[in-house]
């Protein structure tokens, strides 16, 4: 039985295909349309999923959409009624969108799908799952556990903003929910807005900024903004927020509480904003920990699965892991709404059609999250030639040797190999790599390659077998969703003068043997690399280790700020030519910047709208 899962029309549209319960393909639409967070119907992603499985729409038994539009509309109306007459400006903006389009999503979906297959019985075969059930399914069914507690947290779905579900075998049941407007995701987004970043994409930046500050505003947040109970449930005081009735996240009362206005996009980031970021991060961790501790006590389960946008907060995930209330923690790599497409398909298969769960043998079913498009060597060569690239084709071992040499010499390398990752992280399929021992690597990659803010940290990829020698982590973290500290013996003692630095100045001080991936608080967002899921990347790091003694690489997504991660060899070549990347490895092709036609260089910095 083949089931296609879809998420669309809000943000991060995606498609995922499962075949007899096995996840065979999944991709986000933005990677094909090159429009970040593309919310349109995922036409390209669907075509890719079918093509990857040598199927067409005739072979699909059911299509499952990841949420229920009518329930969302119900929430919308009840919210307006509850707050009326406030909220008219928001109502005026929202209603036309709904009346013209969103209310008719089923028809819209049916029409779009009919272009693929006109005679299909969409009335019977187009199904809908609830938003948080989709998240929960995406977290539990691919996990390595036979039974687990599933905690999902995000901004909002239909009504739910957090949910708890119990998973056993092929069964999954939601047992409790926290409802809108009381939302941990929206609370974090409110602070994202307040610190001058874009809601729904700047949350990573707040998390990255937090270690530069002190959580001195956390008591104010606990006292005024939320009423937090022992089990982690809470209510937000809506008199400080504007998202129910207005077009912003917070109001003047919120700004008055902290004493500064909302930061403008181009305003300087000050210590105040870093302290605010540290405070909301501390509050988020406290809420999540209270939830997980209460769940462990209530259920007695040893296994926890996480999904929803808040589960991308890898600092909080790391705290949950180290809290040891659960023996095992598994986080869905596509924890955001794109992963809802996968969850919807799994809901359709296991819950609606009551099909059994394939045996996982204690491993997760995400295949390293390498579920996107791949290109054969001959196709790569053809595409690069057509794009005007000059390249050398090497044997696999030679290619790995050459790239490891370049990395050891301090060059920034674009690494395009195998299938593209599903989820927001690049995991060695579409990555930019660098030498983590270089003190200038973080700054150079941020400013010359990624064109993004200099305070943002980079993540390390480390061989699974060596992770405990370099970081305070014993567990697998294949999806870069766990943060842990660099081991004390790898850290470098800081002088008194260096200790006295604060804020972003701290960044320029080398704090460990691998400064490029060590954040100012010695933390690192770790990816463990496994030979069975990505042998080529594993071999590269191994070769780098042979040359340097260091089994770690800097790994950041292959894109510039505001650009979706590259999907095709042409995307990779264009990004290579638009940035100061030195080397590009696509399959067995190796490209050096100096060999390329300078006329093909392009202004890439301003090609994408900033996120």
């Amino acid at each position, binding site marked *: 039985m083949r089931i296609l899962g879809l998420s669309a029309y809000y943000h991060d549209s995606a498609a995922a295909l499962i075949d007899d319960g096995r996840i065979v393909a999944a991709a986000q639409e933005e990677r094909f349309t090159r429009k970040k967070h593309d919310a349109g119907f995922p036409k390209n992603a669907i075509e890719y999923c079918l093509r990857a499985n040598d199927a067409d729409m005739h072979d699909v038994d059911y299509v499952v959409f990841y949420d229920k539009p009518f329930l969302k509309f*119900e929430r919308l109306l009840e919210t307006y009624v509850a707050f009326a007459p406030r909220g008219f400006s928001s109502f005026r903006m*929202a209603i036309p969108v709904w009346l013209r389009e969103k209310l008719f999503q089923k028809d819209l979906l049916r029409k779009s799908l009919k272009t693929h297959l006109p005679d299909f019985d969409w009335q019977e075969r187009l199904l809908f799952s609830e938003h948080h059930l989709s998240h929960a399914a995406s977290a539990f069914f691919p996990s390595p556990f036979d039974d687990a507690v599933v905690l999902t947290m995000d901004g909002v779905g239909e009504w739910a903003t957090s949910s708890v579900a119990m998973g056993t075998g092929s069964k999954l049941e939601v047992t409790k929910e926290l409802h809108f407007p009381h939302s941990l995701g929206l609370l974090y987004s409110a602070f994202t807005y307040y610190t001058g970043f874009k809601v729904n994409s700047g949350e990573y930046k707040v998390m990255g900024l937090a270690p530069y500050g002190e959580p001195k505003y956390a008591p104010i947040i606990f006292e005024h903004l939320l009423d937090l109970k022992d089990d982690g449930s809470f209510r937000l005081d809506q008199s400080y927020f504007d998202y129910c009735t207005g077009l912003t996240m917070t109001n003047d009362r919120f700004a008055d509480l902290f004493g500064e206005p909302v930061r403008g996009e181009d305003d300087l980031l000050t210590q105040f904003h870093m302290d605010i970021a540290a405070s909301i991060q501390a509050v988020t961790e406290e809420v999540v920990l209270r939830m997980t501790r209460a769940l462990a006590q209530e259920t007695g389960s040893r296994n926890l699965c996480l999904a929803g946008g808040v589960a991308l907060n890898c600092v909080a995930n790391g705290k949950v892991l180290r809290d040891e209330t659960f023996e095992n923690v598994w986080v869905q790599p596509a924890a955001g709404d794109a992963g809802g497409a996968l969850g919807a398909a799994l809901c359709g298969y296991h819950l609606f059609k009551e099909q059994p769960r394939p045996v996982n043998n204690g491993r997760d079913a995400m295949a390293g999250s390498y579920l996107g498009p791949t290109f054969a060597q001959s196709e790569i060569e053809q595409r690069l030639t057509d794009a005007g690239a000059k390249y050398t084709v090497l044997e696999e071992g030679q290619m790995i040797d050459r790239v490891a040499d370049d990395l050891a010499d301090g060059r920034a390398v674009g690494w395009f190999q195998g299938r593209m990752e599903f989820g927001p992280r690049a995991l060695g399929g579409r990555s930019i790599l660098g030498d983590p021992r270089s003190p200038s690597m973080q700054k150079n990659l941020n400013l010359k390659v990624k064109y993004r803010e200099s305070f943002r940290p980079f993540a390390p990829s480390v061989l699974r077998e060596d992770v405990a020698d370099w970081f305070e982590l014993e567990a697998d973290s294949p999806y870069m969703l766990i943060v842990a500290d660099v081991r004390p013996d790898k850290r470098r003692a800081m002088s008194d003068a260096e200790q006295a630095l604060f804020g972003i100045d701290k960044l320029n001080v080398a704090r460990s043997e691998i400064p490029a991936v060590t954040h100012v608080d010695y933390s690192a967002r770790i990816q463990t690399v496994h030979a069975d899921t990505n042998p080529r990347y594993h071999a590269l790091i191994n070769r780098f280790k042979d040359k340097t003694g260091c089994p770690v690489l800097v790994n950041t997504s292959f894109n510039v700020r505001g650009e979706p991660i590259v999907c095709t060899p042409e995307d990779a070549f264009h990004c290579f030519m638009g940035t100061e990347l030195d080397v590009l490895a696509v399959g067995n092709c190796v490209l050096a910047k100096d060999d390329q036609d300078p006329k093909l260089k392009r202004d890439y910095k301003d090609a994408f709208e900033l996120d």
Partner: protein
Amino acid sequence: MSFILELWKFLRVRKKFWLLPIILMMVVFGGLIVLVQGSAVAPFIYTIF
């Protein structure tokens, strides 16, 4: 037509018939707004829309 039928079923299952007059009012008001306004573009606050 199938849309109205589905909406009716939805209200029945959710036991939310009290929403019906509000929906009708909103359709009227919203319809006016749609007529007056040239385009319907959702602002980027995903929480509501």
